[in-house]
């Protein structure tokens, strides 16, 4: 099995605080891995390390064969991270936001339309400023941008949060389709039942490490 993520005894710090205190993780291609654990355990930090955003202070890591210590920057274009924030420009409309992200990669008009309709943000909603949307709607907007980017690894931090039941179902379908198309997913979620039904493997994170 092709290993796409490898973290070995990773220590990562936020200022002086060790967000990760020796984390080990191994993810193979095509998996949907659920990170579960209490708040402050380090789930978000693991995702950020894998995205090449949070530097590794001690230990080593590889994502898609790329060394996270030496070549952190190169990981980024191949990985999609959806954190607590949505990465949206609040003064722009839904449509403007998705199209901006689409213009960062070679997304076709088809792909844009498809992504927006999948997340049900086309139609009336598309011309609303994202500042005026509900949390769930903003989430869908962010997910549409993620879809359009066609990343090989999806790192999702509480993706179901703020979505209604229908939205959650749709998200699950989107995620399964993404894996079917070759992506690998790591998600952190408190939605125990739904997420573990979706996931191929569950991993517990606590005290800045993986148990």
């Amino acid at each position, binding site marked *: 099995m092709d290993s796409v993520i490898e973290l070995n005894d990773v220590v990562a710090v936020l200022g002086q605080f060790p967000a990760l205190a020796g984390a080990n993780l191994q993810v193979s291609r095509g998996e949907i891995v659920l990170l579960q654990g209490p708040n402050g355990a380090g789930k978000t930090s693991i995702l950020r390390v894998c995205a090449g955003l949070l530097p590794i202070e001690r230990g080593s890591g590889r994502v898609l064969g790329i060394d996270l210590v030496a070549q952190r920057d190169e990981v980024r274009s191949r990985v999609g991270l959806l954190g607590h924030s949505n990465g949206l420009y609040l003064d722009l409309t839904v449509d403007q936001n998705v199209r901006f992200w689409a213009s960062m*990669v070679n997304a076709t008009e088809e792909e844009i339309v498809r992504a927006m309709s999948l997340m049900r943000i086309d139609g009336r909603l598309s011309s609303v400023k994202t500042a005026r949307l509900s949390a769930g709607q903003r989430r869908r907007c962010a997910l549409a941008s993620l879809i359009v980017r066609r990343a090989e690894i999806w790192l999702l931090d509480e993706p179901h949060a703020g979505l209604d039941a229908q939205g959650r179902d749709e998200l699950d379908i989107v995620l399964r389709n993404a894996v079917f198309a070759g992506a690998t997913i790591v998600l952190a979620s408190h939605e125990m039942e739904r997420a573990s039904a979706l996931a191929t493997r569950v991993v517990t994170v606590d005290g800045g490490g993986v148990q």
Partner: protein
Amino acid sequence: MSSVKSRRTIAVAVARKDLSIEWNSRILTNQVAPFAAIVMVMFAFALDNEGILQRVAPGLMWLATLFSMLIVVQRSFTVESADGALDALRVAGVDTGAIFVGKSLALMVQLFVLEILLLATAVVLYGVEMTAVGLLEAFVTMVVATAGLGCVGTLYGGLAAGAKGRETLLPLLLLPVVAPVLIGATRATEAAFGSGGTAVSEGWPWIGLLAVFAVIFAVAGTVAFGPLVDE
């Protein structure tokens, strides 16, 4: 696989995005422009002498520009950190040099609009008069000076953005650096206005200085922006 578009396309998209944000939110027209105008009025209160005001109008105009620039730069980066957008751009591996160019261009456009307003205010409030050549010189000065300000503002704005306690760093870092622009732009504008008997021809060398400044920081900024903004 997502393939990233050319740097030029990215820069244009980023510039467009910033200007769309400004268009949608009208911060420049509703908040910054009135602020700049008020600053010009307050100068009149403080200096209380029409002869002096007319004489120092160029300096006052550029001072008002620099003070307003601090606000505009901060705004430029607040929109990026409000919902983690710049973070997301970096995660997507978007070329930071291109982001720098895009944001600089948008900043230049906004500052230029502001400067035109300030020029008009100076003409109205301070009794400035210009010949046709002078007006041309004033415009060229504004274009070249703004190019430099846009670059340097984006560069240090990126560094001073986001995390706690950083915003107050912006004036400390930015104002010393733009001293050459203040000196050059004011002297060139004095020539354009004919203040204190300065000939129009004396302004062009200063514009040369402004051009050098702009080129240096356009290049330096494109290279340095990524490392300064990255965590």
